[in-house]
């Protein structure tokens, strides 16, 4: 039999851990149609059944409060999974059951995985799961997702539900006289008119109307305006009555009664506490230090700094290996293929381009691994807690920190998922401000560019500079957000209300899956987009070629040089060129001098050729403005390419320099050395370029996402123009002030 099972539950209840435990590597991440909430799917074989497992986004409730909740609800109602495994945190039963009760109200076929039963036990909480199952009327299985305990049993329970094919009756509880009466009246009306009953139960629709659920009410209005307005009148009446008599609201009463229902179950001996409820758990003791007034922020800084150290110390080793491998590949292809366009395209376009990007994979992997540790351990929520006061000052929300961090607030994220992470923000204004400023963060694609420049010019203090660059991008993003919130996106702030999950040791499996998912996204992008663009850019940099009279000019120059020396010198050079490893020192002084002159002619020819190419013409045409920021046409070409994807800046610079300075003795030298030794570059140029790279137009993938998430192409276009102008202004300032102070 083949059927689908959904995993649902509160955030931090262990949903993803169970999902990973069940599906392992047989999972893939996609999107729900129309929205960008992540949809994780996988499969699990059990007793000859093929189970399709969907990991629903974590939610506290089934209201229409966030897009995650709406997505979960729509999935349950429209896709009708045969069974739902509701993961419940055993150490936090009451609040977790609040969601379970709402599943039961909706009539979803659930079984409960009473997860983290070991944590509950450590906290002195004993749960009589059989009694809970009897009282609530659904199967309850104790599990420990991180060790896999109870995994088979919970799947067995889900399979049993799926096989029975019985749709459970929706749970009906009392919400007090006033609400119950209103519900009864509404239900009668709904049943009579068959209003929306093809999808939902009459009781549930009535309940949602009382809760003033925006999604259901707007659906109702679409279906039949008159019926909907009749129902809304009943709701209005009870709302007024409750306001007058009890100074409260229908949705408040409903929530109270739901919690009351849960309490009544728990009090029947389901939960027993061995210790005092207020006892400090290990997690609270850790928090006493980690969120301490003075120590907290200091530790936070140290943690972020430590992440860099970790990444740069360990990530650089495999990075060098990869660089060497691609260097070898380039050399091999060069020696095998004859000189010409094909060789040039393969070496300069394909190998240099892809190598430049893939070379950074280890670095990015280490970085993501570090972030996954912070995320999975629960520390990121503390960062949001400690920083909210600051974020609010800039018109943002504590949760904006997540979008910033994923975008690269801890260097190495990606603005694409980062902007998607803004979906946890409910207020359109804070969300838009976060969306528009998140791309200022140092994403994994800008990182190689910045790392390259730092490596070339500030190599003594790599970690420190990297850290300063991060702080700089935060300041830029926050100030830009404040600017936007004061001008084009004015308005009030929205609720914070957030859980601080207990600290947990991340599981290695979870960390690896997390790291791999994100790294793979990076590689996929590198493999497809970048390869194509690298080749296009190579073509732009090669064509149109120099015309024959110009080429002849360089030939003549070469001939003139050679004629200045004896024949013997020329022969010596040719002989040396035949050898695989010509030791330069063994050549005569004359031969060396000739060689040097010839190389400089070659260089000028290549440079002239590149300048003549399409890219060179574009680069040269904007040099008039960009030189105020210290950028020559080569950098301009690279920056134009960077719009396709920021990592392209490197491959383009690589291509620009390997074409522009053909130095046969220098094939092993990396781009970093090339830049450091170039007369056109100084640390100040590098600094100016770092500033520009951080701030200028996001890559086109990000622009597309901005347009989609903000609901308008206007904002996509805005981010390109606004960011580029800001970047240009600031880098010109840096370069001009720096030059003035003769740095």
């Amino acid at each position: 039999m083949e059927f689908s099972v959904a995993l649902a539950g509160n955030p931090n209840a262990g949903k993803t851990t169970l999902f990973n435990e069940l599906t392992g590597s047989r999972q893939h991440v996609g999107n729900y149609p129309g929205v960008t909430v992540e949809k994780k799917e996988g499969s699990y074989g059990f007793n000859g059944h093929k189970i399709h497992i969907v990991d629903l986004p974590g939610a506290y409730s089934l209201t229409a409060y966030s897009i995650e909740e709406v997505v979960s609800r729509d999935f349950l109602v429209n896709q009708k999974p045969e069974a739902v495994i509701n993961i419940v945190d055993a150490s936090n039963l009451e609040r977790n059951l609040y969601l379970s009760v709402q599943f039961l109200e909706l009539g979803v076929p659930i079984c409960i995985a009473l997860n983290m039963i070991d944590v509950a036990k450590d906290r002195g909480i004993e749960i009589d799961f059989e009694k809970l199952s009897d009282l609530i009327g659904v199967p309850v299985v104790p599990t420990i997702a991180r060790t896999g305990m109870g995994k088979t049993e919970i799947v067995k329970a889900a399979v049993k539900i799926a096989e029975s094919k019985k749709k459970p009756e929706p749970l009906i509880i009392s919400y007090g006289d006033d609400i119950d009466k209103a519900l009864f009246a509404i239900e009668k009306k709904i049943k009579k008119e068959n209003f929306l009953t093809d999808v939902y139960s009459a009781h549930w629709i009535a309940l949602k109307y009382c809760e003033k659920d925006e999604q259901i009410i707007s659906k109702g209005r679409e279906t039949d305006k008159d019926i909907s307005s009749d129902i809304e009148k009943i709701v209005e009446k009870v709302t007024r009555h409750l306001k007058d008599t009890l100074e409260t609201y229908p949705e408040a009463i409903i929530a109270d009664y739901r919690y009351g229902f849960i309490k009544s179950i728990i009090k029947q001996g389901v939960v027993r506490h061995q210790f005092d409820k207020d006892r400090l758990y290990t997690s609270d003791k850790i928090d006493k230090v980690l969120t301490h007034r003075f120590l907290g922020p200091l530790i936070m800084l140290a943690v972020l700094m430590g992440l860099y150290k970790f990444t740069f110390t360990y990530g650089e080793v495999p990075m060098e290996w990869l660089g060497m491998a691609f260097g070898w590949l380039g050399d091999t292809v060069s020696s095998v293929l004859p000189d010409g366009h094909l060789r040039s395209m393969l070496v300069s376009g394909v190998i240099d381009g892809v190598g430049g990007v893939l070379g950074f994979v280890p670095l990015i992997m280490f970085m993501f691994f570090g972030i996954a540790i912070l995320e999975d351990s629960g520390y990121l929520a503390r960062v949001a807690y400690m920083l909210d006061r600051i974020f609010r000052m800039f018109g943002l929300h504590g949760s904006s920190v997540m979008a910033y961090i994923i975008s690269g607030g801890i260097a190495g994220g990606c603005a694409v998922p980062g902007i998607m992470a803004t979906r946890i923000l409910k207020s359109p204004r804070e969300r838009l401000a976060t969306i528009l400023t998140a791309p200022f963060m140092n994403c994994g694609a800008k990182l190689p560019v910045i790392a390259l420049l730092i490596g070339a010019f500030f190599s003594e203090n790599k970690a420190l500079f990297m850290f300063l660059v991060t702080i700089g991008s935060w300041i830029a993003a926050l100030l830009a957000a404040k600017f936007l919130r004061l001008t084009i996106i004015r308005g009030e702030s929205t609720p914070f209300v957030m859980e601080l999950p207990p600290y947990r040791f991340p599981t290695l499996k979870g960390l690896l899956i997390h790291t791999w998912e994100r790294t793979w996204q990076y590689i996929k992008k590198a493999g497809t987009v970048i390869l194509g663009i690298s080749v296009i850019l190579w073509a732009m940099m090669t064509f149109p070629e120099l015309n024959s009279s110009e080429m002849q000019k360089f030939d003549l120059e070469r001939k003139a040089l050679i004629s200045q020396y004896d024949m013997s010198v020329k022969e010596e050079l040719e002989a040396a060129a035949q050898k695989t490893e010509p030791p330069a020192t063994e050549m005569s002084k004359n031969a060396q001098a000739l060689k040097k002159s010839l190389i400089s002619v070659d260089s000028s020819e290549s440079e002239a050729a590149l300048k003549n190419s399409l890219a060179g013409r574009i680069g040269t045409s904007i040099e008039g403005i960009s030189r105020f920021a210290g950028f020559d046409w080569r950098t301009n070409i690279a920056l134009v390419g960077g719009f396709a994807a920021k990592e392209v800046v490197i491959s383009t610079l690589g291509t620009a320099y390997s074409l522009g300075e053909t130095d046969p003795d220098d094939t092993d030298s990396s781009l970093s050395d090339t830049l450091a030794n170039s007369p056109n570059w100084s640390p100040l140029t590098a600094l100016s370029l770092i500033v520009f790279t951080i701030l200028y137009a996001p890559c086109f993938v990000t622009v597309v996402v901005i347009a989609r998430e903000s609901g308008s192409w206007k904002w996509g276009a805005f981010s390109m123009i606004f960011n580029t102008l800001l970047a240009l202004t600031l880098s010109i300032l840096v370069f001009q002030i720096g030059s003035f102070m003769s740095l």
Partner: protein
Amino acid sequence: MARINMRLMKKNQSGVISAVRVDGELGRRIRDMGLVPGAEIKIQGRAPLKDPVAMRIMGFTLTLRNNEADYIEVEVE
């Protein structure tokens, strides 16, 4: 016994929620997290910049901004 605004509660002070005077999104969000009349809470502390506030409720830690805590009335000893 006295009813006070949650903002005025001190670190380690505990109490029982007596009213949540807000509807709409904030009200819904607050209630979803278990802050309903009758719920016992204990203030755990405040963020380094004095805001938001962290409290223990039903065995987990919840954080709220001070201006959100203003809507919550707590009965304290």
